[in-house]
């Protein structure tokens, strides 16, 4: 990373799913700058790279945070794994440092909230950053597919995990919230 302190560095977090990918950009652990969901047609690799390029070129983040799904604990579709590989290789091309965190690391951070499912993780995120409460999708019915915005909450949780690894005080504050 450049000489910029992590509190002021731009941290982009990306979480792909079957709809496309959710993203969030932070300029400090309590300062989300931009967030949203980018939709992609099934397997549209070219569009993924285009949309990612647009984010990386415009914001020029210092760090990119993605999920580490190489562990056995996390089962992800081959397509999502491929998307993650593409995202990481594209960020390297933009000379952006990549940090990966497993779902277990995210869960550990949010253990105080008892967050294990995606929904619980999203609710924990809202408790930490209330400005995202308006974006929290309604609770999913068993017969319904996952809401596209859940990927955005995954991305936020990854960013929070990144900041927690960088700053013990932030980590302690999260655990004691």
């Amino acid at each position: 990373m450049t000489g910029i302190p992590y509190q002021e560095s731009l941290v982009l977090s990306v979480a792909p799913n079957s709809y496309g990918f959710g993203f969030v950009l932070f300029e400090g652990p309590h300062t989300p700058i931009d967030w949203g969901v980018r939709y992609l047609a099934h397997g549209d690799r070219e569009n993924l790279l285009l949309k990612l390029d647009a984010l990386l070129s415009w914001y020029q983040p210092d760090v990119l945070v993605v999920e580490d799904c190489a562990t056995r604990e996390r089962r992800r579709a081959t397509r999502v794994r491929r998307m993650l590989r593409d995202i990481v290789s594209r960020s390297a091309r933009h000379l952006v440092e990549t940090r990966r965190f497993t779902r277990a690391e995210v869960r550990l951070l949010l253990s105080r909230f008892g967050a294990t499912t995606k929904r619980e993780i999203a609710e924990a995120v809202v408790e930490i950053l209330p400005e995202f409460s308006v974006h929290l999708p309604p609770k999913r019915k068993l017969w319904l597919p996952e809401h596209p915005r859940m990927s955005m909450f995954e991305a936020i949780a990854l960013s929070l995990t990144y900041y927690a690894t960088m700053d013990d005080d932030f980590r302690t504050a999260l655990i004691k919230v």
Partner: protein
Amino acid sequence: MTSRLPSYLRTHRLKSGLSQRELAFLLGVQSGAKVSRYERLVRTPNLHDAFACQALFGVAAHEIFPAAFHAVEEALVPPARILVAQLSQEVPTAEVEQKLGLLLALIEQGDDAPTLL
């Protein structure tokens, strides 16, 4: 914290939950294209829109549009240098000293301005 992005309009708009079209309506236009251009800083906001955003979000206009502010700040530096050179040749009265203090502070501020994206 120093601003690292050229425009924080999108951040404040997202936080408020407003769509581009709704913000455009508040600014007195029908299409959200103008807001989109402000967010990407393809277009520099005029004084009315900058103040409207300040009133709406409760954040100073120069914090919402830091790049536009720094551009204006930097544009002031060359004429300020010329004025300093002119004033330096005058008799150093209290009034001249006051003007020089103001202009030198402005030049220093302009030189220290961060380079935004």
